[in-house]
């Protein structure tokens, strides 16, 4: 039998924590699970081992009632079967049957292939940021951050603050395009202050705009304008993509840019809510605002709150709107990079299975072409590896002729397990379900 829980929240980042705070405030016993070693998600990542609420901003978890909250770390949700969600903690499976669920699975960095993207020392900005925040180590060699989006500057500033040798930050968008952000920055003084802080931290660093990342070799990187910059570490960042696997397994409608949600963050499936980056990329403040709204909506769905909207809820909804507007301004200022990046026929696109762009092009030129991501998955194994397509899905669909950001056919079917789990774990879940 599955364990009955009133509310399950998957993901203990800003959205999940805010949702848990709001739900327990309303009296809902809540199980909050996260795959990581600590709460806070990527944004509030910190060294493991502390209490769940240690080191988090008080505003993020305001109202949380610890006696109603069960926080389980190192506990990914690896599948959903009907009404049940399969969790695993240190190899031990558990099926839970939640009365309501909030999907707060966050986002990962968008992987854009280019020649050399699979070399050692080519990493994401988030990877070095986590090394710094969680493991407390700093790269020794010269670092260049390249790609697109404000996260490049945020990480560059963090690295510089820790004494790393940041040589350059290269932003694909030109200065002229980024000027469009000014009105939004003027309305959001917290974000404007943040931008100023990055600028101050990066004084003296070579900042380039309007140049893309073409390739990386032994000596460093080559930009789209042909110029070269020496580096030992290249942090390639191109924004974020939401993690949708669990929402899809739960049967909630999604588009490639996020779970489809209504005003109070309900999905297309009753009792399933989604909040934060999973509903579209917008940053930690928006995620927290959405978490609050989703926590209330779930509590109401569970009959723990009266149906009447309170003044407090209206304030939370307007906070969500405010942060959402900044998210949309960022989206306009930093349009997504073409999914195939600067890949050449020799560039590996699917790293788990070693499939190159040339392999994909040849396959889609066959008399019975592989013109659909499901066919490429079946024939070339793209998406069948350990990452389950997390790194290559957009590039593979673009290679076979789909617009990966608007056409949901890009998405091969979601199946459990959404991450590798041992056969013993799966069998454990089966035995639990039979008992």
């Amino acid at each position, binding site marked *: 039998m599955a364990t009955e829980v009133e509310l399950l929240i998957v993901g203990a980042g800003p959205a999940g924590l805010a949702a848990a705070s709001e739900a327990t405030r309303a009296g809902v016993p809540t199980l909050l699970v996260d*795959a*990581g*070693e600590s709460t806070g998600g*990527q944004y509030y990542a910190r*060294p*493991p*081992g502390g209490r769940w609420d240690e080191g988090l901003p008080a505003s993020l978890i305001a109202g949380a009632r610890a006696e109603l909250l069960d926080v389980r770390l190192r506990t990914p949700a690896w599948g959903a079967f009907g009404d049940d969600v399969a969790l695993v903690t240190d190899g031990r499976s558990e099926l839970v049957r939640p009365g309501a669920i909030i999907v707060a699975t966050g986002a*990962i*960095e968008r*992987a854009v292939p280019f020649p050399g993207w*699979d070399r*050692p*020392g*080519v*990493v*994401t900005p*988030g*990877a*070095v*940021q*986590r*090394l710094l925040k*969680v*493991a*407390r*180590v*700093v*790269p*020794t*060699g010269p670092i260049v951050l390249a790609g697109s989006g404000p996260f490049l500057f945020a990480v560059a500033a963090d690295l510089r603050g*820790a004494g790393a040798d940041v040589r350059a930050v290269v932003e694909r968008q030109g200065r002229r395009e980024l000027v469009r952000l000014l009105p939004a920055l003027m309305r959001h003084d917290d974000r404007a202050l943040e931008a100023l802080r990055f600028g101050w931290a990066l004084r003296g660093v070579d900042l380039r705009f309007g140049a893309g990342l073409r390739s990386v070799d032994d000596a460093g990187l080559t930009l789209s304008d042909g110029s070269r910059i020496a580096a*030992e*570490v290249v942090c390639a960042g191109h924004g974020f993509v939401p993690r949708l696997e669990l929402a899809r397994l739960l049967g909630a409608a999604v588009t490639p840019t996020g779970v489809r949600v209504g005003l109070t963050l309900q999905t297309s499936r009753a009792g399933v809510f989604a909040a934060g980056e999973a509903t579209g990329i917008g940053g930690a403040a928006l995620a927290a605002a959405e978490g609050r709204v989703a926590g209330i909506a779930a509590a109401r769905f569970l009959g723990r709150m009266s149906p009447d909207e309170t003044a407090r809820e209206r304030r939370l909804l307007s906070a969500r709107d405010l942060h959402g507007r900044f998210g949309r301004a960022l989206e306009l200022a930093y349009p997504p990079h073409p999914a195939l990046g600067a890949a050449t026929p020799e560039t590996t696109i699917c*790293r*788990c*299975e070693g499939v190159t762009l040339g392999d994909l092009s040849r396959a889609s030129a066959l008399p019975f072409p592989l013109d659909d991501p499901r066919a490429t998955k079946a024939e070339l*194994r793209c998406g*069948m*590896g*350990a*990452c389950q397509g*997390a*790194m290559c899905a957009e590039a593979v669909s673009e290679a076979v002729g789909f617009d990966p950001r608007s056409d949901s056919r890009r998405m091969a079917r979601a199946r459990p397990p959404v991450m*590798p789990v041992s056969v013993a774990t799966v069998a454990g879940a089966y035995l639990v379900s039979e008992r």
Partner: protein
Amino acid sequence: MSSASGARPAVRRLVPTDCQVLVDGVEIAARAGETVSATLLAAGGWTAFSCGMGACFACLVRIDGEDGRRACLELTRPGMVVETRPAREPAGGH
């Protein structure tokens, strides 16, 4: 993998080491509670490590005899035995 190979460390620690682990048969200094990726990168040059948050599976290693562990998520423990070879095999399928 270049741990203990003499390559210049890819990263330096902000917190001192406090234990020993065994990486590919070589004793190296580490700090309990850092990630295994941090331990490997501090012991040698850049190695298979990409997203750093468990999504890409580039950093798979064998830990205390168990295959398929993500070095970027696992926390280093005193006396841990890490094998970066045999290289990861394709997961699943055929």
